[in-house]
């Protein structure tokens, strides 16, 4: 579903009922110091080359993806080089989404400076402010597109430019050996560990 044909103004409009600041405050995840540290670092994209994004756009997208899959106890989108994955996707198999990115990013910086008049760009915001802005747009087509690309790149084969060092696969316990021995069932099933707790999640 491309955003083509949609008016630029509506592009960041929520499709669902908006979630207000109270929700944000109540659900604010515990951000670990590693993440804050990473966010406050100047973005090290200075030497990188991009095929589609301008350096400024790349910085914005990098910040966005680092909110979607943050760097905390384990590496996140930034370490997985997701901005490079998206840059490549936009000149290869997802060319038709270029316009969605250009428009979405313009509106993102506009929104950032509307909410925080001292900045002109999303990536200039501090971590919590970024989170607040993204929470405001989390039901928009643009956010969902970036989210889909971020997750896709994070868990895709590294040959597409993301999932650097296979950190996405490591996160979920997938290893990419092409032949697998254990755990078998059928003849020699392993006992299954018993546990009834589920960790993770905001709720």
């Amino acid at each position, binding site marked *: 579903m491309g955003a083509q044909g949609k008016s630029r103004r509506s592009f960041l409009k929520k499709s669902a009922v908006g979630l207000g600041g109270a929700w944000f405050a109540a659900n604010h995840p515990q951000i670990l110091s590693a993440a804050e540290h990473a966010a406050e670092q100047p973005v090290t994209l200075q030497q990188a080359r991009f095929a589609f994004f301008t350096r400024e756009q790349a910085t914005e997208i990098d910040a966005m993806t680092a909110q979607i899959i943050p760097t905390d106890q384990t590496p996140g989108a930034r370490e997985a080089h997701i901005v490079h994955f998206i840059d490549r996707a936009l000149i290869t198999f997802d060319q038709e989404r270029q316009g969605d990115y250009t428009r979405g990013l313009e509106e993102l910086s506009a929104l950032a400076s509307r909410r925080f008049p001292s900045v002109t760009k999303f990536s200039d915001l501090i971590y919590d402010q970024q989170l607040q802005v993204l929470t405001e747009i989390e039901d928009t087509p643009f956010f969902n597109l970036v989210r889909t690309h971020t997750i896709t790149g994070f868990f895709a084969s590294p040959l597409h430019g993301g999932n650097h060092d296979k950190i996405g696969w490591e996160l979920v316990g997938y290893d990419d050996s092409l032949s*697998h021995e254990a755990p078998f069932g059928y003849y020699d099933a*392993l006992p299954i560990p018993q546990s009834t707790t589920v960790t993770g999640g905001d709720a």
Partner: protein
Amino acid sequence: MPTQLKATDVVIVGMGAAGGVAALPLAEAGLEVVGLEAGTWLDRRDFAPDEIRNNYRDWPMLVDKCEDERPTSRATSAQTANRVGSHPMMNAVGGTSIHYWAQSWRLNPWDFKVVSETTRRYGRGRVPAGSTVEDWPFGYDELEPYYDLVERAVGVSGQAGNIHGQLDPRGNKFEGPRDREFPMPPLRWTAFNERMAEAARSLGWHPFPGPAAVNSENYDGRRGCVYHGFCNKGGCPVDAKNATHLTTIPKALDTGNLKVVTRAHVTKIEVDGAGRATGVNYVVGNNEYFQPARVVLIGCYTYENVRLLLLSKSRVYPDGFSNNHGQVGRHYLSHHQGAGVSALFPYDLDAWYGLPAQGVSVDDWADDNFDHSDLDFIGGGNLWAMSDRRPISAAGMSTYGRGRNWGSGWKRFIAENADRSHGFYIQKSTLPYEDNYLDLDPTETDRLGMPVIRITGQFKENELRIAKFIQDKAEEWYLEAGAIEVSRGGLGNAMGASTHAYGGTRMGENPETNVVDSWGFSHEAPNLGVLGASVMGTSGARNPTLTSQALSWRTAQHLVDAWRDIAE
């Protein structure tokens, strides 16, 4: 003017799952066969374990004819049909058997006799109103020898449940009697598969490993499956999946009697003044050819089989080839496979290293395997607990209300649960109805300017009631196995474009309601045969391909046996 080629005995249009099987008995009998295939040869080096390519990008290929002729679809004839987003099938030598899941089922005996068996057991009036379902012109026993031939020629692994009436509790006790064991033992089970089987048993059900056209051990000079997990819409990089480009087609080529022409897009079946097929026209790039043949077999998959007939208009057949009874495109159905049920478990399922044809099946709630006296539907569904997971799709799992789907909380959730979710694949008996059909779209065309297929179809009460019933069973099974969350999908509505599309050239004795006779040859043009699920009048509750292939073999064998009657 197309270039006129040298005549051949038989031309097969489409070297896929069905056409690729029919070629073998014909070539072995010494008939000269030309296989015209729109796609190209692909081999294991083309099949990277790459989820972006297979699933995100839907398998881009050298030849993307399918994509170009995507059907339009609507639920009822009162609506305008829209082009579907993508076409699930593929173009290559081997056809969609290259990237299919390779579950390789025989139909159960009931599926051949839905009308008479329903009436016998429950009396009249139980076949849903508006359904055009008929008994097949023969029963399971007639097809058994061909199932057996295909299972060996292609290579199918599995566990027999009934050999000449002798039941084996390791297999499916509801299956029709087999002549002998599968040529290979079943694919292994994972510990989770074992646990699901145990749970099914404690509910009093009868779990068994499903049949797969995947080598479970070395077979026919190729190795066994390595369980690397990219079978779903991916070709096999170790040649363990038994697509026809590795099995029956090379064997047919070895006879010296089969010639395969690739990138050959057939556009029309030509007819003489008496209404017999004379051969086919095809294009390769900008060049046009006419391939004369004594007999024409079409095996282009349901949508293209129907389209090719409807496009082949002539003086004798003004509404399309073999369509003077108006039956081409009728009795269409696509399998009800939606209404999924998924679950979250409190332990890892170790499903990364598996394939969708590896798993536990339960047939207790399929077909007429249970008493329907007090139920308001006929038929049922097959429950299939497979072992299949890839990282991107795993990350798309529901968070079951545990928060938003991004950020640190989500990352922790997915780190723990990506390997703890499971989704059932549930196929249900689906019937043909008067108002579900295929025809040519009035406006949309492919790149050659030819109309694409228009699907008009929706699931009816009977399918939706099965869906509701089987979702209850699925939930029961998950909970018994220790699931901590279960969620259900919607019951489904419009049929859309499907990997399991049946009918359109239905097989039956009565030419008023069927396009082909009980051997698969046209009632109107005796030297036209049809291969594939478009001849099937019922779906059963399981995948179609092995049945398509058994029917293809039978049609080809009949052609060999009755060559003079058919070809001359």
